[in-house]
């Protein structure tokens, strides 16, 4: 508990004492009934409602855990991203069966050839490799950590970009109306009719042709994910502003002669913010899904760099990995689920917390 909270507690207990003191005797100090009633501060109310739901807490823990795992985890890993493990003493074992017929009797002979493995491919779970290695001999745990960096960073950047574009364009459309609104909303309409995945596939091919350096590719993809994603935010902001504009408190703000700037920043934005925060949190999960799908289709971060989606795509190329090596494709998949689930839980919790109607 910090200083201020302690102070608050003291204040409260002293106030309670005064109530008790005055109760029996003549009113020495004026303690009104209104003073004895205490409510929750609005911020605390939201925080409290958020933390009441166990799911929100679980979501928060999941996301914080994934962040630590991806950003702090690699420090403790002896392996590096995209580098296969050559330091193995495992052997390739090739067994050949031979049959000799000598004097009418059959002898079966097994020839066992052991050659040292250059690269530690498909290693089982062990102390050296907690989650084994993949088909290229890279440590799955380390790759998963680095993959998380990509997914989490991208999701935040994309969502922030979407928010910027969406708020500006949606705000313009909603606030000014008229031809600005018509123009922006027609653009929104057109973008909303673009099928996401096919478009991203085309863009992926275009990027291939432009000979974009492998490492930078994902940033270009990010921009395009944003371009396809901002329309939701723009629609939300526009709708909110349109409905808020009609409400009495905005009319009264106009009647009181408040400046446009003040109206926007003091009245409109605080009212739109809760919705926006919820949409954005839920959007984080959506972006991670989109990014991992693109990576799965090999449109994201190219090998040997790690991304959760591309790690799972190993099952497509080699069905033995699908069948026998769950430790290769399971962990990144579970990480995607955890991340998306975490953001969804948090978003849901925030929505319930912000909405004054949804009270228990």
């Amino acid at each position, binding site marked *: 508990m910090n200083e201020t909270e302690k102070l608050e507690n003291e204040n409260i207990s002293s106030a309670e004492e005064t109530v008790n003191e005055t109760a029996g005797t003549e009113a020495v100090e004026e303690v009104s009934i209104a003073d004895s009633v205490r409510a929750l501060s609005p911020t605390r109310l939201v925080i409290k409602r958020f933390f009441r739901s166990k799911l929100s807490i679980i979501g928060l823990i999941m996301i914080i855990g994934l962040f630590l795992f991806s950003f702090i985890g690699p420090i403790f890993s002896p392996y590096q991203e995209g580098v296969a493990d050559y330091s193995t003493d495992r052997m390739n074992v090739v067994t050949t069966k031979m049959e000799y017929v000598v004097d009418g009797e059959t002898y079966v002979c097994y020839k066992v050839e052991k050659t040292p493995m250059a690269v530690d491919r498909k290693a089982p779970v062990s102390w050296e490799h907690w989650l084994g290695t993949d088909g290229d001999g890279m440590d799955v745990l380390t790759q998963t950590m680095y993959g998380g960096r990509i997914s989490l960073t991208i999701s935040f950047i994309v969502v922030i970009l979407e928010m910027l574009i969406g708020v500006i364009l949606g705000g313009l459309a909603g606030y000014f109306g008229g031809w600005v609104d018509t123009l922006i909303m027609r653009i929104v*309409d057109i973008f909303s009719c673009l*099928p996401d995945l*096919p478009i991203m596939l085309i863009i992926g091919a275009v990027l291939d*042709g432009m000979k974009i350096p492998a490492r930078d590719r994902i940033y270009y993809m990010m921009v395009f994910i944003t371009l396809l994603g901002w329309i939701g935010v723009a629609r939300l902001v526009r709708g909110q502003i349109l409905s808020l504009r009609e409400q009495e408190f905005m009319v009264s703000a106009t009647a009181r002669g408040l400046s446009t700037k003040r109206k926007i920043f003091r009245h409109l934005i605080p009212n739109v913010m809760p919705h926006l925060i919820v949409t954005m949190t839920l959007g984080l999960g959506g972006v991670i899904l989109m990014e991992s799908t693109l990576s799965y289709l090999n449109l994201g971060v190219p090998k040997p760099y790690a991304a959760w989606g591309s790690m799972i795509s190993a099952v*497509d190329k080699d069905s033995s990995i699908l069948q026998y090596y769950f430790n290769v494709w399971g962990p990144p*998949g579970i990480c*995607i689920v955890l991340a998306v689930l975490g953001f*969804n839980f948090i978003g*849901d919790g925030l929505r319930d917390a912000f909405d004054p109607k*949804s009270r228990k």
Partner: protein
Amino acid sequence: MLKYIIKRILLSLLIIFGVSVLIYTLLRCMPADYVETKFTLNPNTELTPERIAQMKELYGLNDSIIVGYWKWFVKAIRFDFGYSFKYNQPVTKVIKDNMWMSFTLTLLSLVIYYPLAIFLGIKAAVKQYGAFDYATTVFTMLGISLPSFFFSAILIKVFAYDFGWFDTSLGMKTPSLINPTPWEAFWDKAWHLVLPIMTIVILSLGGLMRRSRTNMLEVLNADYIRTARAKGLSENAVIYKHAFKNTMIPLVTMLAGLLPGLFGGSMIIEQVFGLEGIGQKAYAALNEGDIPFVMGYNMFLAILTVLGIFLADIMYMVVDPRVKITK
């Protein structure tokens, strides 16, 4: 009413036009065009540069983007989307032939998950914050959080490889089944659809169930629900008659929005399960730069999307007595 519909149709045409311009421009930016990937990179065919130029001319790749688009546009308004490079058939025929596979798959899933989601949503709302509510919330949230390729991989591993209930070679029919009777062939095909349908159902359940739950909660707090209780109606009548009809309004109109998914197929799921639907065809075409088909497919999706929005509006008018067109 007529004026409103005409206005909507004109607007839809404008949107479709915008979409087509965007997609065409993007497609023409693709460097690896079909002719190059198919003929130049193939060492077996010895093509002279003249031959390549001839081919490009044939496919309309030598025109500038504007001229190319114009040529495409003139044909497209007559519903002629050209000839697919890859499939050597008119685009419309490829779409028509492969559409029904995707349609069957999505429709069957829809029939399962739509009523189920609505029912679960209502149950969860009625018992808000109860154990059932938490359980369905977690389960359905898990559903929306699963990437389709990961979930289908798990299903294939568990049910096809580990349990051996399904054919591991995927696709549409078991290779070992030789000369099946029509009945056997039908069952074999149906059996191959079980896992994809399961994937779609579980992945789609969550979003709809959440929506149904939120709607129901909102309706349950309405004054008219209190009136219904005050009338002495049983709790079942209150929920499944008075509240139900109100929650159904947005959910029914949402059905129309599923139109593009219904006919357009789902690329990933068809790809993973090896189903020969339109999604898989489109994915293959995209990878090889088959411009006419990709163009046609995207336009098909865009038209379905626009149609879906339009239908949703119409449905609203039909279902909700309060909505009347005033424009």
